[in-house]
């Protein structure tokens, strides 16, 4: 089954790319944008029929590789 994961920077961690995107949007007349935070999205095909088992495997992947827990949080959708 397919498992979807979103990795985002923790609150309070500087996101210079998000800031640059926000400023660009403001310059493009989207001047009501006050903040942009950029993240990563993963589609993971796991050869596992049981949904909770697949998700628990993906959770391990998040902790060990997909996210760096010093600065990032992950969410399994």
């Amino acid at each position, binding site marked *: 089954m397919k498992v979807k994961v979103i990795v985002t920077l923790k609150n309070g*961690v*500087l996101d*210079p*790319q998000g800031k640059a995107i926000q400023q660009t949007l403001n310059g493009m007349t989207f001047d009501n944008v006050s903040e942009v935070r950029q993240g990563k999205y993963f589609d993971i095909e796991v050869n596992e029929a049981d949904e909770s088992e697949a998700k628990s495997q993906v959770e391990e992947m998040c902790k*060990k*590789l*997909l996210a*760096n827990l*010093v*600065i990032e949080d992950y969410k399994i959708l």
Partner: protein
Amino acid sequence: MKSSVIIFPGSNCDRDMDVALKKFGFENQMVWHNDAEIPKSDLIVLPGGFSYGDYLRCGSIAGKSRIIKSVIDFANSGGLVLGICNGFQILTETGLLPGILQQNKYLNFICKNVFVKIKNKENKYFKKIKKEVLELHIAHNEGNYFCSHDELKSIEDNGQIAVTYCDHKGNDDEKNNPNGALKNIAGIFNKDKNILGMMPHPERMIDPFLSGEDGSLFFENLIESL
């Protein structure tokens, strides 16, 4: 003294490091990332570059490569492990060093000479270096050191800050911070000071005709201390 430089796909400072180590008397060997074991060594170096194209996060894929287990075992047994630039990023991703190197604050790739202040000489990497400030080269996009508040306190309490960005007089204030790094941190140790990760490249400053010689001081001390 035997040293090993590990080559990952995308490493590009491995040969410079090899030249530098040999120039100052190390018997250096190059080790491929997919090997299972590191040959007998007194020093392991993770060189600069762009291992695995910086995919996912800088150093994250290299941090899971086959050779890394023996690097971790070597480090945990007290062996000297030096990570320069991408090597520093790999060391944080393996968990051997705390924190992480984030993208530079102003989003630019920085390639220039900088001054760094030596913050702790009670270790084999800086012990006999007489200078307090070294001129070294940096070239990176992700050198913005970050760690949690608690981690920073523990790093400071344990004297783990190795070098900080500063001016030629050693002022390591915000004005002399090229990339937004917390506390101007350019390099840190583990608690036991046998592991050092730093963004500046000493291997690029070993020739008076090409660059400068403050890198020579680093390697001369290293071979003497071992």
